[in-house]
């Protein structure tokens, strides 16, 4: 019993940085996972990935001016992310180029610029820190930032839910009944950037998108309603965060990759054993119902 306590409970009960990490991860799970569900359903999973690179130069400018401090790096990341989202959207509206192509162009420029700015001031380990994050360094400021991100996201999702569903399901019809379509799209992209920035201190710019996309893609194998999908994605994200944090604490593994790999495990299991997973589809392959 004592061993169970010391393995599962003690790290979170007795170690302050693990408490902050746990609270951050659970809050981010509630906010990033439902955003990921909509990203996936809008076939924008890779857009999320591109956006996570797009925040890098902003964070790098914050780092260049103030060093490894969370507030300036976060604000910089937020500004850069929104600018890239706006620029990619504008290019797709003003030219014949699709949004994915312009986004790819902007994120490549962003990542090169970001790495260049960081290398102008920092050492290699600081670059690694920014790219992959560090839970040990989560401060109370970071926690406040995550609380703000989660509150804003959950409130916005609750308010915009019907609009987001309409925009995904039948975008042309939505544009015919409401002028909110561009606003809903912009607020949604802002939520994506906000959650990437929220996950940035702990998971780094490369992996923060994982908390968004992996739980959503795993949940898709189990349920067919968007609300249930969001609830399941939140549960997957929160549980995997706890497992990842514990694995990292009891070993030398960095926490960010440990959390994302736990989620990767959930994805692989869902891929095979989920209701619409590979094995389920194969097991009914030679049988059929009468009608």
């Amino acid at each position, binding site marked *: 019993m004592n061993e169970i306590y010391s393995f599962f409970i003690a790290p979170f009960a007795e170690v302050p940085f693990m408490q902050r990490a746990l609270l951050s991860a659970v809050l981010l799970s509630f906010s990033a996972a439902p955003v990921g569900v909509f990203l996936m*359903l809008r076939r924008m999973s890779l857009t999320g990935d591109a956006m996570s690179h797009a925040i890098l130069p902003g964070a790098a400018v914050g780092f260049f001016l103030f060093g490894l401090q969370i507030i300036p790096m976060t604000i910089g990341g937020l500004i850069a992310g929104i600018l890239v989202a706006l620029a990619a959207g504008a290019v797709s509206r003003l030219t*014949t180029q699709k949004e994915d192509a312009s986004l790819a162009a902007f994120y490549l420029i962003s990542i090169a610029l970001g790495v260049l700015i960081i290398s102008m001031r920092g050492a290699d380990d600081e670059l690694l820190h920014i790219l992959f994050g560090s839970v040990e360094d989560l401060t109370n400021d970071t926690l406040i930032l995550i609380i703000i991100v989660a509150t804003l996201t959950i409130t916005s999702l609750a*308010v*915009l839910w*019907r*609009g987001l*569903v*309409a925009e*995904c*399901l*039948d*975008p*042309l*019809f*939505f*544009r*015919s*009944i*409401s002028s*909110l379509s561009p606003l809903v799209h912009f607020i949604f992209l802002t939520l994506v950037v906000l959650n990437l920035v929220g996950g940035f201190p702990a998971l780094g710019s490369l992996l923060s998108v994982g908390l968004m996309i992996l739980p959503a893609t795993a949940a898709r194998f189990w*349920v*067919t*309603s*968007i609300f249930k*999908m969001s609830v399941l994605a939140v549960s997957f994200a929160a549980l995997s965060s706890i497992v990842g944090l514990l694995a990292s604490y009891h070993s030398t593994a960095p926490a960010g990759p440990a959390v994302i790999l736990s989620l990767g495990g959930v994805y692989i299991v869902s891929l095979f054993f989920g209701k619409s997973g590979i094995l389920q589809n194969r097991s009914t392959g030679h049988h059929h119902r009468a009608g």
Partner: protein
Amino acid sequence: MNEQNALTFNNLTLGYQSHPAVHHLSGKIKKGSLTAIVGANGSGKSTLLRGIMGINKPMSGSFEIDSDQTLAYLPQRAQVDQSFPASVLELVALGLWSKRGLLGRFTKEDMQTLYQAIQAVGLEGFEKRNISTLSGGQLQRALFARVIVQDANLILLDEPFSAIDTKTVSDLLSLIANWHKQGRTIIIVAHDIQLIKAHFPETLLLARDAIAWGKTKEVLTPKNLSLAQNFDENWDENAPWCETDIQKGQVS
């Protein structure tokens, strides 16, 4: 605007990247009329409907919708993301947007409206079914239920009969006939000439420009159809600027 007209086009041009898809269209849609829009692919039919709905803005000219008109729009079926995890009920419920908007709660009466509309299109019992499991015809029925829920007096339907079996076509035609009897104005993009001759009294034959517009029998003559079929849907990247616009000083 004459109160007899639901819709008036004043030299309307709609298009994409300086190329017209609907070119200098003028004319009127009378209230209570049932008009088919006919033309080859790329002749501007869907663009015209999108223009009326405000999705595409005019490049020149204008149109007026009479102030007492409310609009319902059925986009082409392919526009719906059928892989999205939504039920038939949720899809049809989008038709309540003008009443309930982003945040309004659905009332008991709203739910009754939804169920009645689903029943009216022959999909009773399908309310909770995921739209990904619907056939093309069933999805089109669900989209018609959404039009019923919108309860508009000007209804725009974009290719509702494409790739649909004859039973569904006949059921949807009776719904349209019913709307017509109720005095609603209906504009419908369609391809089947025999079907249009049998069911739609007015026709606008488009080939970017209006080839003919009026009584269906007078519009769908072999000569007019041949003119419309010879329409070249390709854009000429080096096409000269439209002379009508140059005369009006819109192009320098």
